[in-house]
């Protein structure tokens, strides 16, 4: 899980410059997220972790923090359908 979070942080760091991102920090509140990042993030999570993000996964909570993205990936990989 920690390794997975590190990969997510690594991807986001390319957009966030010198900002050091904490795992529970709200990336939307930081003001870095635009529509291009939003859609690239979906593509990254899908390719990096071999999951498919579907319409029912579209919940800002799922993408708000590194921890939440990690939890989303975990649920998708284990087939758990309940959102956060």
């Amino acid at each position, binding site marked *: 899980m920690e390794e997975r979070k590190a990969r997510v942080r690594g991807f986001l760091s390319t957009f966030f410059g010198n900002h050091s991102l904490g795992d529970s920090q709200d990336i939307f509140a930081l003001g870095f997220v635009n529509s291009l990042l939003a859609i*690239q993030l979906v593509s990254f999570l899908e390719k990096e972790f071999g999951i498919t993000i579907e319409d029912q996964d579209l919940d800002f909570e799922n993408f708000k923090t590194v921890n939440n993205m990690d939890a989303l990936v975990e649920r998708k990989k284990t087939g758990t359908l309940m959102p956060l």
Partner: protein
Amino acid sequence: MIRATESPVMQIELTSAQKEARRRFRAFVDEHIRPYAAQWDRDEAVSPKVIEQLRIRGYLGVPLRRFEGGDMDPITYGLLTEEIARGCSSVRSLLTVHDMVSLGMCRWGNSELKAEFADPVANGEMICALALSEPEAGSDAASVRTEAQVENGEFVLQGMKKWTTFGQIADLFLVLARCEDKLAAFVVPAKTPGVSRKAMKGISGTRASLLAEIELKNCRIPKHYLVGKLGFGLSHVISTVLDHGRYSVAWGSVGIAQASLDACLNYTSQRRQFGCELREHQLVQRILTEMIVQTRAAWLLCYRAGYLRSIVDPGAYAETLIAKYFASRTAVHVANDAVQLHGANGISDEYPVGRYLRDAKVMEIIEGSSEIQQISIARCPLAEI
């Protein structure tokens, strides 16, 4: 993002299957599109016959079928788009909008929506159009005023859309609207009571692409016609749609540039001035060289974007922005040079280059103007090549 097969290395070369596909596309365009493009431009309407030909050959809905496991890779799809644009940008614009909407609908639509529309859209029985722009909302798509309200378990839409490509004949619209103060995307069938459309005439470029204004008055649609969720209409649904549109427009721009170049290579080898063919003059050679190099560079950027799409690399979004930006500007420059090389003939409708220039200018505006691309590219972190 389109699902894809893995490719171990980046090859700056088409596969034999891609070359064969391009040969087929060229033959189709040379028989069914190029000879009629000027007339469609004058008529301000492509012929229903060519739409039927696209349907028969399976050229409508290709990305959707690929998303569902079909077999045309992104580069081959780019070649198809390039070749069709070489013949007629208005026909290319049908592929662009139909495929944008069908892909967005199937990428983010719910299972009930897909069960209802995926098949007829994938085989081109139903034509799709994007109802995004409004009289007061162009580049600033988030400022749309079209509203959707929830009433008795349905959505009720009100608003006015403008610049809807193929809006005159589309069967389905993907509409961006505001609902509970959140942006959301909805599928609205054209036959829905309250939908009316008005043809837009007198457009200078892609004149045959059947633009329309779409008015929505108390249009009631079932709840499952919402694509994605409330609040994700622009950030995910329309972003997916526009990403595909930029990819299509980038290749289409290369098609215009190539058509302009082909016309000039032909013209300058036949036209004689000052005792020799135009192509013997060094200043003409300079222009031809710029046209060739710019067109080739644009093609390579499109190829790179296509390669990244084929390996489902997240960096494909940024590379597609770059390809669209460069290719659309190239199309304008090359078509402008083509008119110049044709002299007075260039501004006559006896030659196609004037149409190419008008069509090229459209490419710098649609799916994000060049200025919007500049803002996006400058802000976007880029992977190493």
